[in-house]
Every structure is written in C-alpha cells, then in structure tokens.
C-alpha cells in the first residue's frame, strides 16, 4: 500500500502530455521585463537605473528586508526603464524593463555543466549564498528559501522533505528536471541538509513518475540519509501539510508552520536552484516551465529566462490563439487565469496551460443537493459548503469559527461539486474578509 495523506483529496485526469518532452532552452525576445515582486514578502529594491548596462547574473534589485529576495538580470542588455506593468492579478506592479543585447554572463558565474558534488561552504554561508543568489521556493508559493532555512529560536529541524510530487494535472516541469538533473538535485538536497543541520531527507514522488523514482533512488543510494518515497497519486499531495502527513504521519497544527513538527519542505526545483547557487555561483534567473494543454500543438518543457513574456513560450509551443479560451499560469487546480499573454514568466511560474474555449467554461451552477462530496474531498477536514454559504451571506464570525483560514485553496471541493457551485470563489472572499477582521481586532 503506497503512502498518501489521510483526509479527502480528488483524482483529476492527469493529462501529462509533455512528460516525454525534454527540457529545451528558449531564447529571450528582444525585450524582457523583470517584476520587482516575485516572491512572498516585500518587493525587491532596484539597484540599477535607466540606461545602465547589465550582464546576465548581475544584481538588479536587493532583498534585504526580512522576507524579500534578490533579483538578477537573466540577460545582458540595457535597462530601458523601471515602470509599472499589469500583473497576472490585474494590479499595476513595478518591473525592470531590459533591452536584450546578448547573453554575456557576469564573470563570477561558473557556466560549466560539470557536476560538482563536494560541498565546501558551511551552514551559515550556504544560507547567505542562497539569499544572494535570489533563490525562492519554486513550487508556486515563492517563499524566499533562505528565510525557510533559518530555524526560529526554540525549534529544531529534524527532517528535510523534498517535494517531487507534482500533483497538479498537466504539469511536468519537476518531472523533467528530476529525469535530467537527478545528481544535481541530490547534491542540492545534501546542501539543504547541511544548511539545516539535519541527517535525514525524504524525496516524495507520486507513483505516476516511476522513471523519476527509479533514477533518484539510484543516485540517492550512496547517501544513507536520503530516501526516495513513492506516493499514491492523489491531489493535493504536493500541499506542504498533506505531504508531511503522507511521509511522516505528522499533522502540522492549524495555523502553524511545518517546523512545528520538525520538518522543512523544499521543492525539487528549489533543490536544483540551490545547487546552482551554491556550487556554481549561478543566481536564479531561469526556470523550467511546462507549456501544455489540448490547444498547444507541441506540449513542451522549456528552460526560460525570467521576464520572458508568456506569449513567446506559447508561440514556440504552437498554440492556436483563435481556439484558446483560458491561459493559466500554473496548473488547472490552483493556477491563475491570465488576462493576456503579455505578462512575464516569473520565478513561481511552473507551467502555462492553455484550455480551449469549451474547456474554459464552468458548468452551469445548480442548487446544493447536500451530497457532502465537498466535505469528503476537503483535505483539511473543513465543510466547504458551509464556509461558502456563510461567506456568501457575510456571516464572517461563523466562517472564522468554521476554520475558514485553514483552507489551502486546493479547489478539491469545487472540482468535485456535482452542482458545480463556486465554493472556492466564496471561500476566498470569506478568507479575505476574516483576515481583515482579525487584523482590525488586533490593532
């Protein structure tokens, strides 16, 4: 019996069309723009100005406030402007616009592909290096990695979990990375273990990627502390709390972080980025992005410079704009639908999914028949029908008592609902309001 999390979950069609498509680098267009706010926390502070010449790997902006991150130039070129653009959520956000002139790198970056397994840096300097190289969580939440590596006073990390689950349908960027860079990921894992001072790490991978499980197991076998654990295919297994429970049986208490149960979770992409940063002095300026969907003629995995517009990837993959209904940054369960294809790829973009017109429409909403499928599907043990209802009628005290803030917005409830009710829409609004109420109460 394969391990998995205990409560709820759904199993959508996996549709991993691009699983066999090797990672191919994609050239940046003539102009790119790098948003200043790419990670959770405060936006980065620009250190370049209009007209400056930069090389790839040069620092564009610093992240010295507690939760913030460094940004580096993905290309060599000229700073054209620092101005606002419309981001995926429709807000105006500042970005650095660069005119691309070439791909000449900063001399400090080691560009060789040679594997470097010896770890020379010590704990604190690893964390400093991870910070300076702008590494953030690549699983989607983009939490700055160096902050996650600094264990709060009084807590102790005991186990590192590497998240290779990739439970979102369609996405294959982590899968391809595990197949093509397994030894780098294992080395990255060892670096993270050293930084955290832990002796054990588990790499969790869903059982629909047997090739990745075998390959990583093979390379991990020389390191007794690292174990690869296959998991049953079930969404949202890649959720931090679900993954910890699946692998260790431990439940992170409501409102607390994984460190409460001695765990730190990092994505496989992050482990690779850490390897690049620490062993090669190479900042995080590119990432693997899956471009997929029935609309796309060649579902692909691209190695993309941060700041490349989504449209450049779509054209390369052969999308059919006239048939497209939705372009989603991320997977179909938690991704964000884009207003247009001009927004740039950022550190947190794991995939671009294009749905055709008909696939993009929601089914007709019907009355709740109290079937309790949402209650069974909720991985957090909440009552989605109830939270959606009390949020809809603005009874936010009831929503708060119903633990609405525990919701991880995985979308399982809305996915399963036979009446196609917009449960998560209402719950999201409810969470927003409850958070506001709590903030004003604490003032």
């Amino acid at each position, binding site marked *: 019996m394969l391990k998995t999390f205990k*409560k709820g979950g759904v199993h*959508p069609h996996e549709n991993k069309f691009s699983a066999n498509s090797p990672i191919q680098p994609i050239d940046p267009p003539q102009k790119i723009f790098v948003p200043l706010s790419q990670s959770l926390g405060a936006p980065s502070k620009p250190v370049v100005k209009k007209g400056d010449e930069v090389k790839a790997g040069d620092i564009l902006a610093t992240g010295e406030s507690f939760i913030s991150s460094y940004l580096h130039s993905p290309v060599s070129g000229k700073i054209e402007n620092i101005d606002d653009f419309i981001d995926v959520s429709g807000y105006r956000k500042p970005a650095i616009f660069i005119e691309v002139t070439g791909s000449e790198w900063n001399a400090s970056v080691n560009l060789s592909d040679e594997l470097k397994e010896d770890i020379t840096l010590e704990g604190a300097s690893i964390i400093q290096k991870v910070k300076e190289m702008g590494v953030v969580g690549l699983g989607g939440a983009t939490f700055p990695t160096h902050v996650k590596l600094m264990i709060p006073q009084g807590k102790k990390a005991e186990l590192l979990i590497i998240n290779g689950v990739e439970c979102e*349908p369609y996405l294959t960027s982590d899968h391809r990375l595990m197949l093509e860079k397994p030894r780098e990921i294992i080395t990255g894992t060892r670096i993270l273990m050293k930084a955290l001072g832990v002796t054990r790490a588990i790499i969790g991978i869903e059982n629909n990627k047997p090739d990745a499980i075998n390959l990583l197991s093979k390379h991990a076998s020389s390191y007794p502390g690292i174990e690869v654990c296959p998991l049953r295919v079930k969404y949202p297994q890649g959720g931090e*709390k679900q993954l910890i*429970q699946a692998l260790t049986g431990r*439940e992170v*208490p*409501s*409102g607390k972080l994984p460190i409460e149960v001695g765990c730190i979770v990092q994505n496989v992409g992050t482990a690779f980025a850490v390897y690049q940063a620490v062993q090669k002095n190479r900042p995080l300026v590119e990432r693997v992005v899956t471009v997929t969907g029935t609309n796309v003629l060649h579902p692909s995995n691209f190695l993309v410079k941060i700041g490349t517009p989504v449209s450049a990837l779509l054209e390369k993959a052969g999308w059919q*704009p*006239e048939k*497209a*209904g*939705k*372009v*989603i940054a*991320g997977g*179909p*369960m*938690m*991704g*964000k*639908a*884009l207003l247009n*294809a001009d927004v740039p790829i950022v550190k947190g973009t794991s995939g671009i*999914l294009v*749905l055709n017109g008909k*696939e*993009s*429409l929601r*089914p007709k909403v*019907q*009355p*709740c*028949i*109290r*079937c*309790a499928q949402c*209650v*069974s599907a*909720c*991985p*957090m*043990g*909440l*009552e989605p029908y109830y939270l959606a209802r009390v949020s809809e009628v603005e009874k936010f005290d009831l929503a708060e008592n119903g*633990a609405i803030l*525990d919701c991880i*917005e995985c*979308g399982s409830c*809305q*996915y*399963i*609902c*036979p*009446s*196609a009710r*917009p449960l*998560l829409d209402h719950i*999201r609004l409810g969470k927003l309001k409850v958070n506001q109420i709590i903030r004003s109460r604490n003032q």
Partner: protein
Amino acid sequence: MNPLIVSGSPHIHGEMTIKSIMWGVVIALLPAWLAGVWFFGIGAVIVTLVSIASCVLFEFLIQKFVLKQEPTVNDGSAVVTGLLLAMNVPSSLPWWQVVIGSLVAIGIVKMAFGGLGKNLFNPALIARVFLLISFPVTMTTWPLPIESRANVFNFDGVTGPTPLGTLKTQLAMGQTVAQIKLPSYTNLLWGNIGGSFGEVSAIALIIGGIYMLYRKIITWHIPVSFILTAFIFSGILCLVNPNRYADPVFHILAGGLLIGAIFMATDLVTSPMTAWGKIIFGIGCGVFTILIRVFGAYPEGVSFAILIMNAFVPLIDRAFKPKRFGEVK
C-alpha cells in the same frame, strides 16, 4: 485573438453531476425493481409508470406555471422520487391514489420548500405516510407474490399479509414467536413475500447498495449504522424474551428496513453531511424502527423512523463537525 476568459481556480471540473447521481440511483434501484416486477407483475409496472410520469409532470407544471422558473425535470430527481414512491407502495394501489401521492411528494414536500436540495423531509416517504393515513385499506392490502402477477386493477383473492403484519397480529392474539408461521429466510432474501413491491427482495436491494457505494453516491455510514443498530436492538429484545420478540435477522430482512436503510435514509438532501452525523442519524433510524415495530401500533416503522430523524438533520449537522486537519484542542 479572442479575449481570454478569467475566473478563479480550479479551472477543471470533475465528472460527477446531479444528473449522473440521480441516474446512478435509478440504476441502483433497477435490480430491486426487476425483482418486484418478477413477483408482482403488471401491477408493479403500472404503479411505476403512473408514479414517475406524475412526479415529472407535477414538477414541470409547478416550475413552469407556479414558480415561473426554467423547468429542471431533466436533472432526474423527480424520476428518482417517482420510482422510490412506486416501490414503497403495494402493486395493487389504484392509479389515482398514486397520482395523489406524487402530488404530495413533489408539490408539498419538495417544491413548496424551495425545490431540489431545500426539502427537510424525504418526499417519497412523506407521500407514502400520507397515503397510508388517507387510504389505510388500499395501502395495507398486499398482493401475493407470483400469484398476483397477471392481475390488473382487481386483486380479489390474491392478497395476504406481510411477514411483519403476520407477526404483529398473531402476537396480539397471544401466540409466541415460535408458534407463528413466518416466511423462510430464503424467501425473505429473494423477495417471495408480501409487501410494497420494491422492498421485498433483500438481495436485489443489497446489490443496488453496493453499486451506489462503488459509484461513491452514498457512503457506508448510514446503511451500516442503521442496519447494525436495528440488529443489535432487536437482538437484545430477542435474547430477553424470544417468545415475544422475533430474531434480529428476521427484522433486517422483513419489511422496508433494507430499502429504507440503503435508499431512503441515504437520500442526500435529507441526511447529514459528516461521517459522525450520518452514523448518529443511522443509529436513530434503527432505534425508532424497532421501537415502532415492537411497541407501536403499526407493524412497520421504517418510514416514520427516517422521517423523525430527517427532522433532526439540521441539529445533527450543527453538532457533528468533521475532524479538522491539525485541529488544536
């Protein structure tokens, strides 16, 4: 390029729909319906056709002309109500009484409370109880299995009691359980007994229940807690005084307990939402069923038991919450 559609996640939807659930219930009811037709013949077919047609028609007419809504009869919920109502009455019930039952189920119990998903009580069960009180003679005239197969409208000479009816009247006449001639377990299992035509075949009902569990339309909680409670309660009574109280296997197989536990108590709209809520609901149904059967005036208590527990569902939903992930006590 067309403007892109923007909406919140999730961007895909599962296959389950109201329609697929309702037709799933219909498929699950088919074995028991076929068994009913096998034992009770043309009468069962006529009752079914009248019941489904009138339920669908009443729903359509009320939505179109009274509530002025877009009719939603093709969601299949009225078909399920019609089928369940038919299977819960004798195959000899006059057609116009079936129509009155449909009007009560759809008009009063379902639409007057706001339509699909809003009713507090199980429509088919209220209709059944309404008919039982309004037409006590036709609702307690039970055609004999097999012998009544060819009879249409006239059932003279081919009627007899239900197993529970036999038990109740003979006990009242001072006989002990052992002296009363009850049908064999084999006949109870296959359905060769008197009763509402859809409730007789235990095996067919259980097959339907397994199908609904497989399709994830229902969960095990209500049927199992209902049946187990009835078994334990009647078992204790039987141990205390086997002359007065029938054995628990008889109580499970006879009457409407199985159709009630598998199909009526599990009605999604009128049962609780959480696992523990469902278990409490099932326990309540089991206790009330045996209480009414053993100590009440009626030989059968399943309908009343489920309706009583329906009334507690809002309270149960409030009291029994799922166990939250990482709940801090």
